[in-house]
């Protein structure tokens, strides 16, 4: 940054507005959250202090392996699981949708039209989108009516709603677009002549996909993955509504603590969540250098 400032003053100037926004609305609040996570609190106020109680409380009983797994580990385990499964399905679906859009649809107009169709899930509010699953997946919903009518089952299937299944379904439905966009973007940058060259050298479709397209799409895949993983890690609304509030999430714990004004405890949880999410992103960026690829 300093170097840039010396070399090209205009670049430094141009970056000032964004830097200010970043500092005031992201960096300072984050530092405050970190500081407050060491404060004490009572029913109605937070008290400046330097204690580790908020953190030790989170990991209380977590290293006593004779007992059941502690809430914190259980919650993170379930969050990681949702993250992984959602990531997996959004990646597979997102990749092939992007592939279709980039390589099978030749007209730009159609690409735009189909792309807009992908955004349909975002036309309604988050809550409505999720509530609308109930008439479909519920005990008396369409899917169960169909299963009963065709005689595939004798009793309504309850695992369809308020379960891990429905949560993953909602996540995939909501966030596949976050995968499609960056992967599609990467694919559009691939020089078609490279694919032709591979073809000319005798590679078959699968080999081209594996050895040419996927490596060149890596930046898009990583960016899409970062989007999906960070969103799922912090989510509590989707997990809450689709899981019938019976499945834990870190976001929900933080939310409950905040509504009971246990702000330092919530801050400590937030710091841990942030650290873990950053760790995952760090590992992913180790696997691929986004800056270089872009």
């Amino acid at each position, binding site marked *: 940054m300093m170097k840039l400032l010396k070399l090209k003053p205009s670049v430094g100037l141009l970056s000032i507005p964004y830097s200010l926004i970043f500092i005031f609305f992201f960096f300072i609040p984050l530092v405050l959250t970190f500081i407050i996570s060491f404060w004490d609190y009572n029913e109605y106020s937070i008290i400046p202090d330097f204690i580790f109680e908020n953190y030790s409380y989170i990991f209380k009983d977590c290293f006593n392996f004779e007992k059941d797994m502690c809430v914190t580990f259980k919650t993170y385990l379930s969050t990681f699981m949702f993250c992984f499964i959602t990531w997996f399905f959004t990646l597979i679906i997102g990749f092939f949708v992007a592939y279709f859009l980039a390589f099978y649809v030749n007209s730009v107009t159609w690409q735009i039209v189909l792309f807009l169709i992908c955004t349909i899930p975002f036309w309604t509010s988050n809550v409505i989108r999720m509530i609308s699953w109930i008439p479909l997946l519920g005990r008396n919903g369409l899917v169960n009516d169909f299963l009963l009518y065709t005689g595939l089952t004798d009793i309504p299937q309850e695992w369809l709603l308020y379960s891990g299944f429905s949560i993953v379904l909602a996540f995939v439905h909501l966030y596949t677009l976050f995968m499609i966009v960056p992967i599609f973007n990467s694919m559009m940058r691939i020089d078609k002549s490279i694919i032709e060259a591979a073809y000319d050298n005798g590679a078959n479709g699968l080999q081209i996909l594996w050895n040419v397209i996927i490596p060149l799409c890596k930046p898009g895949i990583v960016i899409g993955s970062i989007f999906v993983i960070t969103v799922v890690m912090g989510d509590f609304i989707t997990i809450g509504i689709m899981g019938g509030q019976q499945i834990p999430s870190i976001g929900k714990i933080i939310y409950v603590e905040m509504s009971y004004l*246990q702000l330092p405890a919530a801050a400590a949880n937030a710091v841990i969540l942030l650290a873990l999410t950053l760790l995952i992103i760090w590992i992913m960026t180790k696997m691929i250098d986004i800056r270089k690829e872009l």
Partner: protein
Amino acid sequence: MNKNLTRRKMLKTSTAALGAVAGAGLLKGFPAIHAADAPVIRYLGTAVNMGDAVQKRLFDDTGIKVKFIVKTTDEVVKTIFTQPNSFDIVDSEYFSMPKLVPSGNLLGMDTKRIKEWDNVTSAFTKGEVAGKKIGDQGTAPKKVMYLKGAKSKEFASEPTQYVTLIPTVYNADTLGIRPDLIKRPISSWAELLNPEFKGKASILNIPSIGIMDAAMVVEAMGEYKYPDKGNMTKQEIDLTMKIFTEAKKAGQFRAFWSDFNESVNLMASGEVVIQSMWSPAITAVRTKGIPCVYQPLKEGYRAWAAGFGLPATTKGRQADICYEFINWYLSGWVGAYLNRQGYYSAVIPTAKKYMEAYEWDYWMMGKPATADIMSPEGKKLASKGEVRDGGSYEARMGGVACWNATMDENKYMVRKWNEMIAS
């Protein structure tokens, strides 16, 4: 969604009102002195029981305007702590008082300035209904009603001139059921954990209220008798949560809910046939034409109560306007409006004046309706011949077993509740 809708309507109305005021100013060619003078009260609360009709009537009667700041129960409390000057009057629940009063952010309310103070129902002031003591476990209003002085941060055990909140509305809550799907009488809180309803039960995921429903169930099952459900020891919290954790693991609950509309959806769709529910949610299910009963139970009701408070900094003209507003609120029209929604007004005699005799008989006396009963919005709630669930005011409020509560072990309770959700 309902809330948003009313808020949006409210925004519209207030904008329109503003426009009208500005327009009037222009026409007369005067600077908007009168418009600036028209008192506006910033009203912080959940506003679930406030509609456009209230605002209109208020303006016609007093010339006061209300600007609603609509938030959830927990957010209202948070706002009093963190932005105590962002509102002029707050509509809060009594169970928040043990948390709020020590902060000193609320003003002691002067009962001498309340015209109808002597008519405030004895359920608030003495914990009695029709001369009979009612359950006072939990944060019963009488425990947190009186202050030692106008600026005091301590509760007084004996009646004083200063109170924490001026009571407005209250109700007795119980379980809601779908009689068409259960097909047999329900008479005990214990039924919530009856394996017969496995996968078809629900409880609300708001720890401070959910724990009270849970305690009612545990006691009804005969597992334990609490000395005070509303102020459990750590061991009692552990015990309660253990029973519910086991039930949850066995698949008793279809879902938990934390938003009013979720409870309506669960019940209306038939996903759930028995659950903790609030009175307006029952109404919402019924107006869809789906049978739903607010089932009276032999162990009694869990009650709640709300009232108006003022920020500690209120004084002078601002205080005059707020007291005028409160006096208007208790003068009967709103009381009747609340009673017609199935709540109870804090000042009953004034509300009676604004209700038709058949309405009074249905809502307050527990008599069969002699004509169709309509909601304040004009929707049909009950047909001729029907009787209100739970019956009369005396039967319902007299049957209160406990109140929504803030416990001494609140922090521990929230933690344990989260553990149950995670199990």
